[in-house]
């Protein structure tokens, strides 16, 4: 059984702390792969000055656990850390962190990619951007839905 840590939180996170936690007392893993997602200034053709992230309390955590469980069934993972922020965020703020450890890199690369792809289409988060034209909800992209196709067995 993998050691899984999942957090949906307002406050920021420190990647060096997360990385240290993944390495601590770890004699079996040869690979750590992580992804961090940031707020960028240009999105869907508009200049963004910030965003707010809404979620569905309860369901979000449940959905994230289900996605991580699925990844653990597909690949031999030992540790998984997933942090997703909610609330008000500014340009270049960290939004999401997904890290997995495994004995070998192939499993770690694939599982990290898989978790991010499913998080984008299955976990109930919604972004609202502040742009020069006012606030707007970010539209879901069909490419995010299509990204799931590559994981079908």
């Amino acid at each position, binding site marked *: 059984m993998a050691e899984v840590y999942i957090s949906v939180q307002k406050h920021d996170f420190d990647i060096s702390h997360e990385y240290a936690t993944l390495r601590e007392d770890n004699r079996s893993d040869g690979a750590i792969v992580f992804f961090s*997602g940031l707020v960028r200034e240009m999105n869907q053709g508009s200049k963004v000055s910030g965003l707010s*992230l*809404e*979620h*569905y309390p*309860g*369901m979000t955590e*449940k*959905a994230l656990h*289900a996605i991580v469980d699925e990844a653990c069934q597909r690949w031999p993972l030992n540790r998984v850390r997933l942090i*997703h922020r909610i609330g008000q965020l500014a340009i270049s703020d960290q*939004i*999401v962190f997904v890290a997995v450890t495994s004995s070998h890199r192939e499993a770690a690369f694939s599982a990290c990619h898989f978790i*991010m792809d499913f*998080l*984008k*289409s*299955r*976990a*109930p*988060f*919604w*972004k*609202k951007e502040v742009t020069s034209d006012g606030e707007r*909800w*970010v*539209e*879901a992209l069909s490419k995010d*839905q299509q990204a799931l196709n590559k994981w079908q067995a």
Partner: protein
Amino acid sequence: MKVLFFAALRETLQHEQVELPVALPATVALIRAALCEYFPQHQQNLNAGNALAAVNQTLATEDSEINEGDEVAFFPPVTGG
């Protein structure tokens, strides 16, 4: 029965939740039809392409069953990550 709304759908409907007169057990499709009746001017926002449904905090399909005490929510396609 109570139905919850999130994000853009909550703002469009101007409701965080509604109480619907629906006989149970029902299906997501039946609840969706009842919502379209309740909010006739927002049927497009409530169709299956624009509003996902969750039952007991798990994504549901149109034929998912809803029983007494289940938590039902509708919301737009998600945009996290």
